[in-house]
């Protein structure tokens, strides 16, 4: 949000949904039990929706990682998709009575009814391969996944929950950065979440940051980069300054692959890149290797 989003991603439907009657001309009718097909925005292949879902929302043809939200991540990561949501009733105030081309209050209202979400992050506690964990996940569909007071507070509380109950904390980032409409309140969420992570670290409880497409601005400059383990999905855009800002500053095009997950791993800021359908297993294995709740 600090940076203009190149790809708004605000559309609730990630793939271009193709109705049966449109694709029957070219595709085999018999293989569409639910009648729903998806068109991959990258390779343009038209694949049954259920294949994509079963593949953790990764294109079965080209491995494109579809932009998904907290609902999908929770169903992928928590055992049997079961979890208890934390702080579900937090929603944004309007501390600055902010108005640009429309009022912040209206933006919130529209975003809430469009997305069915209260704000840009949900958190919950449940089990991953039997191990109790706390997961907080950002929703890009809510004002570009921007971080305001609600996002900051819910992350802070999720970290506190993990510290008090001695559960590993996992935060999944997907954000355009700080929420301008909360100005300095939004800025201070960076300090707040980072301070809470310092307390968590003192207690020796693991923190895993999962960076997904896109993770930029104030989110990158706080909790997203502070993992004991920084884990990225393939080919995600991850950076502090937005690509447009950098391009305008240096006055030339950016090198290919700049600010991608692979670029960050190469430069030493991401521990490993994991495909989404291997994410749960790999993270659960890692946690099982290092984490003993009773040890302190």
């Amino acid at each position, binding site marked *: 949000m600090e940076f203009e989003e190149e790809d708004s991603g605000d559309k609730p439907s990630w793939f271009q949904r193709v109705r049966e009657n449109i694709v029957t001309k070219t595709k085999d009718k018999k293989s569409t039990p639910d009648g729903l097909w998806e068109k991959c925005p990258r390779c343009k292949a038209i694949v049954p929706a259920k294949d994509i879902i079963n593949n953790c929302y990764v294109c079965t043809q080209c491995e494109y990682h579809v932009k998904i939200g907290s609902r999908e991540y929770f169903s992928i990561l928590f055992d049997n998709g079961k979890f208890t949501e934390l702080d579900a009733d937090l929603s944004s105030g309007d501390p600055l009575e902010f108005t640009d081309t429309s009022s912040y209050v209206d933006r919130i209202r529209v975003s809430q009814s469009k997305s069915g979400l209260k704000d840009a992050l949900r958190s919950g506690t449940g089990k991953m391969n039997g191990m109790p964990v706390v997961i907080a996940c950002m929703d890009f569909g809510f004002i570009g996944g921007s971080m305001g007071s*609600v996002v900051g507070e819910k992350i802070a509380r999720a970290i506190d929950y993990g510290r008090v109950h001695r559960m590993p904390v996992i935060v999944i980032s997907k954000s355009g950065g700080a929420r301008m409409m909360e100005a*300095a*309140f939004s800025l201070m969420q960076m300090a707040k979440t980072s301070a809470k992570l310092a307390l968590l670290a003192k207690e020796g409880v693991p923190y895993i940051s999962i960076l997904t497409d896109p993770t930029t601005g104030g989110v990158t400059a706080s909790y997203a980069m502070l993992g004991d383990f920084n884990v990225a999905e393939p080919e995600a855009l991850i950076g502090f300054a937005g690509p447009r800002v950098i391009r305008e500053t240096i006055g030339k095009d950016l090198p290919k692959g700049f600010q991608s997950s692979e670029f960050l791993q190469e430069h030493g800021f991401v521990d490993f890149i994991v495909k989404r359908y291997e994410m749960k297993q790999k993270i659960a294995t890692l946690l099982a290797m290092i984490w003993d709740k009773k040890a302190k």
Partner: protein
Amino acid sequence: MAGTYFDFEKPLQELQEQLDKARETHEKGKVDMSELITQLEGKIEATRKEIYSHLNGWQKVQISRHPERPYSLDYIEHITSDFIELHGDRNVKDDKAIVGGFASIDGETVMIIGHQKGRNTKQRQYRNFGMPNPEGYRKALRLMKLAEKFRKPIITFIDTPGASPGLEAEERGQGEAIARNLLEMAVLKVPVICIVIGEGASGGALGIGVGDRVLMMEYTWYSVISPESCSSILWRSWDYKEKAADALKLSAEDMLGNKLIDGIIREPLGGAHNNPEAAFKAVKDEIKKHLKVLKAMEPDELVTTRVEKFGSMGVYVEG
């Protein structure tokens, strides 16, 4: 007397020109102008008071960027002695946009760290316009850890248009460098006082801004984005910077009212550049006042209070 006037200071500039002329005539000894001179001097003072009594957000942003405003090294030179500058992050290089080192304030050793801008074209480039790269933040952290090791308080001066956006900054982890400072500063076991002396732009400012006391000088700004960038993103035009400055509530008064800072340091009439000596004294007095209180606190109490302070920032509805 400052030589650069803002649009909103136009009446002042005109009066000053009249005054200069009157003085010249007087000095040439042709006509006795002393009465007019006194009159004009009084008028300038009154006009300046009038203008500065109701500045809007954008005007304060302009003052915070005045080319003659004191920078970090000016404060260091005038309020400390024995400044020993320490260079480098022990890894990549010495970032010139952040300076730091041990110094003495009336016999007390402190670590002073600040963003540094340049005054002329050459210096501005040398200091990268006060926009640090990751190694600047890492140098700052190294110095803060040194201060903690030797149990010396830390003072930071914030004055940046933002962390540097560039290829090298991204390659070397600008986001990680700032994030690491936020985490580490939150739990430093020595007193930390942060003072916004000019521009407080976003993460680039906050990267040396997590303190027990965060103070803003009267004519500075602090927010998540500059009014110009905010205008270009939300209004999709550069023309709404004044509106954006008001909407962002980025002035010292607003920031204090929202409990996002701990105090305001009053500036001399017309801004710090108008009477630097007075500004240096005001800053020094505030540092000494707050240090006295903070030094009486136990290290654990400092950390707990600091984390709680930042932990309580934010406005939301529950239920």
